[in-house]
């Protein structure tokens, strides 16, 4: 490879569409989420920092970084301090697997047969590290929140993965970029798998700890759940990680059901961003329209309705191939 190609790889991983691009866009999407949520509640939302307050998430992030870094006594020091860093690393890694259509390329930075399985595995690890953070903080609310995160995980992940499996069965590939490409030439999977899309968005809501499934960090019940003892830089990292996770989950839904970056004129980043924005606004709307479920009710929703429905979707994909 020539020097120019090396440079190009570096630019792609670090700047566009890599780390810096993802971080900036995630923070902007946090603003979209907050603004839409506020407008739905008849509030103004952030409006002070930058035009229409769109720099507010950046300001919040910087403020948290400048706060004192507190490690309470009795915590499991290494797990407690490492889990925010590892979580951030894992979500960033997951974003590399998503075909964004940057530079009009159809494939993601990291695209190989089987990256689909890696992407789903990473979502599990992210939740497990939030459990570690809560558990290692030795705070009563933290421990309860951590336990709830795990309880919840063993329900929504199953329905989420089954819906994703139905798409993989239909497209006959385990590469996310290929999945998006297959849809470009045919119908989008939101039309072929409408049931799967609905259940996937529902499970995503739980994956992202959003109302009505925000039991692990239910603030009126258990203060901050697994986040209770996390403050300062660690909180900044976890919040950034959760923003990127929102971006990642929305782009996963886009890739699986909305043909990723593909539009009428080939792969393009603008198509991708428009679709991701649509999914995020969908998530925000759901968040504004419901009250919080109890943890036992969360499990009931998924085991009684979501998982059977996703199994139906798998059967449909098995017997009626497109």
């Amino acid at each position: 490879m020539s020097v120019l190609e090396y440079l190009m790889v570096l630019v792609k991983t670090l700047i566009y569409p890599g780390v810096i691009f993802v971080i900036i866009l995630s923070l902007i999407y946090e603003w979209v989420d907050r603004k839409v949520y506020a407008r739905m509640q008849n509030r103004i939302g952030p409006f002070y920092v930058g035009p229409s307050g769109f720099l507010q998430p950046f300001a919040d992030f910087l403020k948290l970084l400048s706060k004192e870094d507190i490690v309470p006594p009795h915590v499991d020091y290494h797990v407690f301090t490492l889990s925010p860093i590892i979580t951030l690393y894992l979500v960033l890694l997951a974003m590399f697997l998503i075909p964004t259509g940057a530079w009009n390329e159809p494939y993601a930075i990291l695209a190989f047969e089987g990256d689909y399985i890696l992407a789903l595995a990473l979502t599990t690890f992210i939740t497990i590290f939030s459990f570690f953070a809560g558990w290692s903080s030795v705070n009563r609310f933290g421990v309860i929140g951590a336990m709830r995160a795990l309880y919840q995980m063993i329900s929504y992940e199953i329905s989420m993965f089954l819906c994703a499996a139905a798409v993989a069965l239909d497209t006959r590939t385990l590469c996310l970029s290929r999945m998006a490409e297959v849809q470009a030439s045919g119908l989008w999977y939101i039309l072929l798998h409408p049931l799967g899309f609905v259940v996937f968005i529902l499970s995503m809501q739980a994956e992202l700890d959003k109302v009505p499934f925000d039991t692990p960090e239910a603030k009126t019940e258990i203060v901050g759940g697994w986040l209770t003892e996390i403050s300062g830089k660690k909180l900044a990292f976890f919040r950034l990680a959760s923003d990127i996770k929102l971006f990642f989950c929305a782009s996963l839904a886009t890739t699986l059901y909305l043909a990723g970056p593909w539009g009428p004129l080939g792969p393009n980043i603008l198509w991708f961003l428009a679709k991701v924005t649509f999914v995020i606004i969908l998530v925000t709307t759901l968040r504004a329209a419901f009250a919080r479920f109890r943890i036992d009710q969360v499990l009931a929703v998924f085991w009684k309705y979501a998982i059977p429905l996703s199994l139906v979707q798998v059967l449909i994909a098995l017997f009626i191939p497109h």
Partner: protein
Amino acid sequence: MSLFEIPLGPQHPALKEPIRFIFKLDGEIVVGAEPRLGYVHRGVEKLAETRTFIQDVYLAERICGICSAAHTTCFVQAVEELLGIEPPPRAKYIRLIVFELNRIQSHLLWLGILAYEMGFDTLFMYIWRDRERVLDVLEMITGNRVLYAINQIGGVRHDIDDKIAAYMRKALSYLRERTKYYKGIVERDPTINARAVEVGILKKRDAIALCAVGPTTRGSGVKFDIRADDPYAALDEVPFNVVVYDTEDVMARTLVRIDEILESISMIEYALDHMPSGDIRVRVPRVVPAGEAVSRVEAPRGELVYYVRSAGGEKPERVKVRTPTLANIPALCKMLEGAYVADIPVIVASIDPCLACMDRAIFVDVSKEKVWVWSERELRRYSLRWYRSREGVRRR
């Protein structure tokens, strides 16, 4: 899993005011709840003895910001009874109107908080936006949004003219429409139903045995409302229904309050139509003759009791206040037994706790290790022995 103790409060996001509970948990289920009160003790009762009756009206108002009309009405009625005077009929109607506006405001505030505790922030924001309309009306009548300062001994301070009445009717019909809409949401929304139906059960017999008051007891099917049982202000002339639901859960208490808002709106409209003309206050002497009086009103949270004793001077000799939240605490502990951790905030909110009003009395902790039953005679004997053994502490 062994029993796990979890503290709630004095500072907690679900609590707007300080109180502490220690919950014993078995997994996610509450086995026992122990309250600890007294974090906002302000010595109001002692302070009342050092001020004149007229000053005490304003002190009573500051016991609670949310039900300030209830406190002043109750105190003023007790003093009027001591003086042996009757306020003019128009003053009674104005008192009733402000009182019921106060109830609407308080119930809407509570409904918003309940939605917030359930994690339903959208409903919370909408309800609080509509609550502003009631506050506007109250501001128009009295000049204040929170501490109305409308009641005085012998009548009220401000009249309601036609302009205010017209504005009020408009606001009330808007509120009626909105309240009906919110009732529909509460009844139909699946997530609210999941969090409120069959949660925080208070059986009818427990509600009676533990002396619960207000919407808490009316949600358990007990028809107990001071407005009907012991009418005050102009309540004997204004028709209304006592709202009772008998499903004994948080949903019942919610619906009781929503229906009470609708009842209050009709009451105010009736009162505006039938308001007699005339003076709004009578002149009263500053010196109150010796004697004692008890006054009760149905505050938004339940029965509020004032006891006032005068030794024949400008200042009261003793003022005792019993607020509804205090009466509901034993019932609250009963409701919490067997609940899920996730239901704690909703159940605590369901009695509409107003802790700053409550913290005046001194509480004695009874050791939980020993359980014994005392008959009335044994209790009396114990108390006599207790007083005899402590020379310095003697009942006056």
